[in-house]
């Protein structure tokens, strides 16, 4: 017989000393942080940062962002809270995953916060992958006018990926 799923509950406002302790200066070792690319060749490193905005376009200072990428070669996981940067940004150091089966490279993003009873899933694609992005099955299947919300903008070796929970620029969230 199929068992019932354990219901989801909010992460609440007080997760930091448990899930991101070192980032928030608590006396407990962190399992993971924003540096996903430890030990990987420097010239491959990229940085991804962004801000999470609520329905009033105010930055959210108590969200937690997780990234997961697996291109068969590198399996990388990162976690960062938005409560320590003065602009409430999250910041990751990683590498761009390889394209698989001709699809555009992307990173899974999972978002948690007070006020979310269930976490949200989205994806980070890359603005300098225009050719692959144009052919990508997922990017082609999302509403065209919202497609840009999934694409991180490149400046130098850094990408900006802002997340809008609601409003005109509401980020596309996936049913994963």
């Amino acid at each position: 017989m199929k068992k019932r799923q354990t219901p989801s509950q909010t992460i609440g406002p007080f997760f930091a000393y448990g899930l991101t302790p070192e980032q928030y200066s608590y006396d407990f070792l962190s399992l993971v942080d924003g540096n996903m690319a430890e030990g990987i060749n420097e010239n491959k490193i990229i940085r991804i940062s962004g801000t999470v905005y609520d329905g009033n376009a105010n930055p959210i200072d108590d969200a937690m962002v997780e990234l997961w990428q697996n291109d068969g070669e590198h399996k990388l996981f990162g976690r960062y809270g938005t409560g320590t940067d003065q602009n409430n940004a999250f910041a990751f150091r990683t590498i761009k995953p390889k394209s698989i089966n001709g699809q555009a490279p992307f990173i899974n993003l999972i978002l948690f916060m007070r006020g979310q009873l269930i976490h949200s899933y989205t994806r980070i694609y890359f603005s300098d992958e225009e050719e692959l992005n144009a052919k990508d099955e997922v990017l082609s299947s999302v509403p065209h006018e919202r497609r840009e919300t999934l694409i991180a903008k490149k400046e130098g070796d850094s990408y900006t990926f802002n997340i809008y929970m609601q409003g005109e620029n509401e980020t596309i969230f996936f049913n994963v």
Partner: protein
Amino acid sequence: MKNIISSSFDPEVQPKHLDKAYKSTLLRAPSKPLIIAKKSLSDSTGPLFEDFNLGELDHDLTKNSIKISEPLGERIVVHGRVTDEKGQPIPHTLVEIWQANAAGRYVHKVDQHNAPIDPNFLGTGRCLTDAQGNYKFYTIKPGAYPWGNHHNAWRPAHIHLSLFGNAISSRLITQMYFPNDPLFQYDPIFNAVPPKGRELLVSSFDLDITEPDFALGYRFDIVLRGHNATPFENK
């Protein structure tokens, strides 16, 4: 392949994103429908934490941050089994917990509740499930605490849990409650879960795991959802 479990969040037991009684959802819940995307390698896998060495006392919150003496409050053992929806155990998966202390106060700097901090209790821990999917923590029973959602709002005592499972779809953050809490009926976070799901969030007292002269036992089994199959996977 047809044998993939088709399993979205089950609407009969899972909360909706927007719940007007829980006011923080109003500006933070996505307003547009979610989009189903083709699966990729990274969706069907998840982090393993194989290279992280858990500390010897990471699973024992009664000991993992002692400064002077033992933390105050009622010692408890929380244990249970993590399975998928078919009842198959999920071995060696990470379980992280965090909670308020016995007085209902979190260590977190943002918590302004005027109740004492316990210098010997951080209130966080973690462990991996064993080969049969079992986990176990020693901790202190957390207290109820007030919050600002509405006049005289109090959260029932709870422990936060974070789990991964085998894929990104099995990721879960939840809260475990204690039996017969009189605050259940007033709590919008608990009641955001449909009636069929609420009992799944309440642990049960378990004399069999209660440790004589040491700690009361509570059992809390956890079921993680499987992959959400899409038409793309039915090739």
